[in-house]
C-alpha cells in the first residue's frame, strides 16, 4: 500500500521539524501556529460542520488561558495538567451558557450573542483586577511538566502541542465521519429536514458549540504556558477575526483546511514584514476577496479540481438511472402486512379542531382528520387551501393556535419535530429539502436509526457498539436505496441529480425511518407520466410494508388510483371526505376547484 508509506513519511517529516529549524524565533512561530490550528479547528466545528456563525472564540481562548494561568502561576509545571483540564471544562461550560439560549433561535442570534459575550469577557479581563490583574496581566506561568521532564523550551513544547493537536484532530475526524458528523452536515444544509428526519437539532448544535468552546479553552491553556505571560489585550475581537480567516483560507468544513490556514496566516505576515496596520488592512480585504472568489478555501478548491465526489464516485448520474426499480430482495424488518387487516385499530393520526392563525389569516381552521392505519389517505384542495400548513403542523414545524393532534395514541401538539419523527412520523417536502452537500447514501443515512444507538463516547473511542451501529445504519440505508431503485447512485452528491431522483431520495429518506405514517407533500410535482408510474409503485409498496400514507397531491389521476380515502380542504376547512368515487361527484368539491358558475353549468349539462 502506498498511502500508509506516504503518511509515515509525512509524520516523520513533522516530527523532525524542531531539528531542522534552529532559530528559536521560528520554532516559537511554529508553536504559535499549532495553537492557532487548535483554535481554527475548534471554530470549524461550529462554523464548518454545523454551519452556525460564532464570533466569540477569542473569549473562550482567553477564558482557557486565564483559567490555566490562575491555577498554575508561580507554581509547579505539574499544575499544567489540572489547569489544562479545568480550562477545557470552564470554557465548555461557558459555551453551553451562551449556546443553550441562543442556538434554539435563528442562526444570527448566536452570532450576536457570541459577539456580545466576547465583549463582556474583554471587559472582565480588563477590569476584574482582583483576579485577572487587569492590564498588568498574569505572569510567572510555569512550563508544563510531567514531573521528571519539563517542556521548558520551544523544541520540547512543540511535541506537547503537536500531540494535543493530534488528539483533537483524531477526535474531530472521528466525529466528522460518524453519524454525528452527518447530522451536523444535515443541520447545516437543511435544518428543518434534519429535524423532521429525527435529528435532535437543538441538542446537537449545543453539543457542537460546547465542544468547540472546549477546544478553544485547551488552546488558551497551551498559549498561557507557552508565552508564560497573559494580558487582556491578547484576547480581543481581532483574534476572532484572525481565526475566522484561517478557517476561510484553509477551507471551511474541511478536515485539514483550518490547520493549513493557521500555518499560512501565521507565517505569511512574517515573510511579508509589513507594519501591523498594513497587515490588518490586507487581512480585511483578504477576507472579503476570499469569501467572494474562493468560498471553499484552498482545500475546497483542491477538492473541486479532483473528479467528482472523491473515491468511490464512479457512477455518473447519467449512466445510473434504471428504467424500473428492482424488486426488493431483502425484506426489511418491519412486518409486511396486508392492507385490509389493520382496519380495526384506532386511527394512526387524529386531529381535532386543529387551527393555526398567521396574523389575521386562519390557514387551517378547526380541522378534524382521522387517518386509519394501513391506508393511503389523500388530502387534496386548491392551492393555498392549507394542505402543506397542515403537514407542517403535524410534523412539529408550526405550533397549532388551537386544537389537538394525536399520533399513534400520543398527543403531539407541542412537541419538537425530531421527537415526532422518532415517534414514527416521516415526511417529504414539496420544495425539496435534501442535504445538498452530502451523497445520496449519506442523505438517507441521516434518517436511518439503529436498534441500539451509540453515544458520543462510543463514537469518539470507536467502540464495537458504535461500529456495529454504523454497519446496521448502512445496511438500512442501502435497503432504502434499493426500495426506490437508486442503489447505483449511492456515492453521487444529491445536488447533481435530476429532479425526479431527488424526489425519490426524499421518499427513501422517509422510508428508512421505518415510520408508522409517511406524509408525502406533492411527491409527483414536476414529474412526467412515466416517472409518476414509478412513484405510484413506490407508494403502493410502502403501504404493503404496513406504512400508512398521507398523500398531499394535485395530480388527480394519481390520487384517484392510489387513495383509499380522500379529504378535501378549502380555505383551511374540510369541505368533503369520502372514497375517491364519492369525492369525484361531490358538488362542493367541484365548486371549490372550478368555481360556482362553471360547476352550475356543468350540472345543467349533466341534467340535459
Amino acid at each position, binding site marked *: 500500500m502506498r498511502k500508509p508509506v506516504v503518511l509515515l513519511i509525512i509524520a516523520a517529516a513533522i516530527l523532525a521539524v524542531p531539528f531542522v529549524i534552529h532559530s528559536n524565533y521560528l520554532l516559537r512561530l511554529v508553536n504559535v501556529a499549532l495553537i492557532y490550528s487548535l483554535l481554527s479547528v475548534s471554530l470549524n466545528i461550529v462554523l464548518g460542520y454545523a454551519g452556525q456563525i460564532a464570533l466569540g472564540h477569542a473569549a473562550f481562548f482567553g477564558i482557557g488561558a486565564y483559567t490555566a494561568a490562575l491555577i498554575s502561576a508561580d507554581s509547579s509545571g505539574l499544575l499544567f495538567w489540572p489547569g489544562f483540564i479545568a480550562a477545557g471544562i470552564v470554557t465548555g461550560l461557558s459555551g453551553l451558557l451562551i449556546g443553550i439560549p441562543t442556538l434554539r*433561535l435563528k442562526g444570527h442570534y448566536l*452570532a450576536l450573542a457570541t459577539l*456580545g459575550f466576547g465583549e463582556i469577557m474583554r471587559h*472582565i479581563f480588563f477590569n476584574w483586577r482582583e483576579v485577572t490583574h487587569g492590564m498588568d496581566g498574569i505572569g510567572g506561568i510555569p512550563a508544563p511538566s510531567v514531573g521528571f521532564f519539563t517542556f521548558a523550551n520551544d523544541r520540547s513544547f512543540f511535541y506537547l502541542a503537536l500531540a494535543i493537536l493530534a488528539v483533537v484532530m483524531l477526535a474531530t475526524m472521528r466525529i466528522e465521519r460518524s453519524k454525528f458528523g452527518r447530522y451536523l452536515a444535515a443541520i447545516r444544509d437543511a435544518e*428543518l429536514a434534519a429535524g423532521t428526519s429525527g435529528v435532535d437539532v437543538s441538542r446537537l448544535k449545543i453539543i457542537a458549540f460546547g465542544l468547540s468552546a472546549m477546544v478553544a479553552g485547551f488552546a488558551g491553556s497551551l498559549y498561557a504556558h507557552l508565552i508564560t505571560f497573559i494580558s487582556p489585550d491578547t484576547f480581543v475581537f481581532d483574534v476572532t*477575526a484572525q481565526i475566522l480567516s484561517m478557517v476561510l483560507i484553509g477551507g471551511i468544513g474541511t478536515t485539514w483546511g483550518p490547520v493549513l490556514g493557521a500555518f499560512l496566516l501565521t507565517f505569511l505576515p512574517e515573510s511579508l514584514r509589513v507594519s501591523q496596520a498594513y497587515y490588518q*488592512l490586507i487581512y*480585511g480585504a483578504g*477576507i472579503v476577496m476570499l469569501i467572494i472568489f474562493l468560498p471553499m478555501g484552498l482545500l475546497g478548491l483542491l477538492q473541486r479540481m479532483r473528479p467528482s465526489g472523491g473515491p468511490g464516485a464512479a457512477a455518473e448520474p447519467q449512466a445510473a438511472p434504471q428504467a424500473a426499480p428492482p424488486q426488493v430482495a431483502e425484506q426489511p424488518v418491519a412486518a409486511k402486512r396486508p392492507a385490509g387487516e389493520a382496519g380495526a385499530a384506532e386511527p394512526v393520526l387524529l386531529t381535532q379542531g386543529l387551527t393555526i392563525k398567521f396574523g389575521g389569516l386562519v390557514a387551517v381552521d378547526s380541522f378534524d382528520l382521522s387517518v386509519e392505519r394501513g391506508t393511503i389517505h389523500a388530502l387534496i384542495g386548491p392551492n393555498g387551501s392549507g394542505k402543506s400548513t397542515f403537514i407542517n403542523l403535524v410534523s412539529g414545524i408550526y405550533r397549532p393556535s388551537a386544537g389537538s393532534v394525536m399520533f399513534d395514541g400520543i398527543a403531539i401538539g407541542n412537541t419538537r419535530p425530531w421527537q415526532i419523527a422518532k415517534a414514527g412520523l416521516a415526511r417529504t417536502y414539496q420544495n425539496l429539502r435534501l442535504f445538498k452537500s452530502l451523497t445520496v447514501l449519506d442523505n438517507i443515512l441521516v434518517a436511518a436509526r439503529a436498534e441500539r444507538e451509540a453515544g458520543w463516547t462510543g463514537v469518539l473511542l470507536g467502540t464495537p457498539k458504535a461500529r456495529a451501529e454504523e454497519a446496521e445504519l448502512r445496511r438500512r440505508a442501502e435497503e432504502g436505496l434499493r426500495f426506490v431503485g437508486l442503489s447505483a447512485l449511492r456515492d453521487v452528491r444529491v445536488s447533481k441529480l435530476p429532479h425526479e431522483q431527488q424526489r425519490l431520495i426524499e421518499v427513501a429518506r422517509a422510508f428508512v425511518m421505518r415510520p408508522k405514517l409517511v406524509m408525502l407533500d406533492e411527491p409527483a410535482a414536476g414529474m412526467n407520466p412515466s416517472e409518476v408510474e414509478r412513484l405510484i409503485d413506490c407508494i403502493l409498496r410502502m403501504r404493503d410494508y404496513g406504512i400508512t400514507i398521507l398523500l398531499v397531491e394535485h395530480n388527480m389521476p394519481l390520487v384517484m388510483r392510489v387513495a383509499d380515502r380522500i379529504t378535501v380542504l378549502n380555505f383551511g376547512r374540510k369541505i368533503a371526505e369520502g372514497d375517491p368515487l364519492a369525492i369525484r361527484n361531490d358538488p362542493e368539491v367541484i365548486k371549490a376547484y372550478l368555481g360556482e358558475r362553471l360547476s352550475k353549468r356543468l350540472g345543467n349539462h349533466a341534467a340535459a
Partner: protein
Amino acid sequence: MGCICALVGLGFILIYNATSGLNFAQGELVMLAAFVFYAVISAGLPYLVAALVTIATMAVAGIVFQRLMFYPLRDRSFLAFIIATIGFSIFARNLALLIWGPYPLKVPSFFERDVVSFGTVVLAPEHLFIIAVTIVVLIAQYALFFYTDLGRRLRATAQNAEVAQLMGIRAGRMIAITFMLSTLLAGIAGVLLAPIFLVDTEMGLNLILKAFIAVIIGGFGSVPGAVVGGIIVGLLEILVAVFVSSVYKDAIAFGILILFLIAFPQGIFGERIAERA
C-alpha cells in the same frame, strides 16, 4: 447616545429587512463618516456644508459597498455576507488607522454655548440637536417609506424581491437604494457623533455592538423596535454608570443582551424567531 444607537440600529435593520443580510460593518461606516467629517472640516469648509458633503459621500459609499460586498454574494448563504462585512470592518478600521493615525481626533462643536439650562436641568446643546435630528430623520424616513411611490417599491422589494421584480420593480436598484439609505443614516450618525465624542478607529465595534443590543431589545427586524431599543440602551448606560459601576457599564449592557436572548428573544416588537417552513 441612545439616539445614535437608534440610528445605527435602524441602518442595520433596513438592510436586514431588505436582504436578510446582517451588516456587521454598520459601526465602521459610522466611524468612516466621522473621519470624513473631520477631514472635510479640517479642509476648512463651513460646518453645514461639511456635514452635507459627509452625508453625500456616505450615500455614494453605500452604493459602492452594495455593489462590491452584497451583489456578488446575493445568492449565497447569510454566513457569506456576514463574514464579508466583518472583513470590511477590519479593512475600514485599519484604513482609518493608516490615514488618520491612532490618536483620537476632536471635531469642534457647532454651538457657541456650552450648556443650555432648563431650570435645574443642564444639557449640552449638541444633545438636544442630536435628539432633534433623530426625530426629523425618523419622520422623513417614515414619510419616504409609507407616503411615496419609491417607498412602496422599497417595501415591496423588502417583502419579496422576486415578486417585486415580476411587478416591474427594479429590485436590484431598490436594494441599492436601501443600502444607500442605510449608509446615509450611518453618515448622519457619524456627523452627530463626531463633535461630542472623540473620533477614533475603535468606535465602530462599540457602536455596532450597542446597536445589536438595541435591535434585540426592540425586536429583530422591527423599525420602531430599533428606535425604542436604541433609546433604552442609551438610558440604561447612563443609569448603570451612575448607580452601579461605570467600569462595568458595557459588560452589564451585554449581560442584558444575553438575558433578553434567554427570556424574551422576540424583543418588544418581536419577529418570528424560528425558521420558516
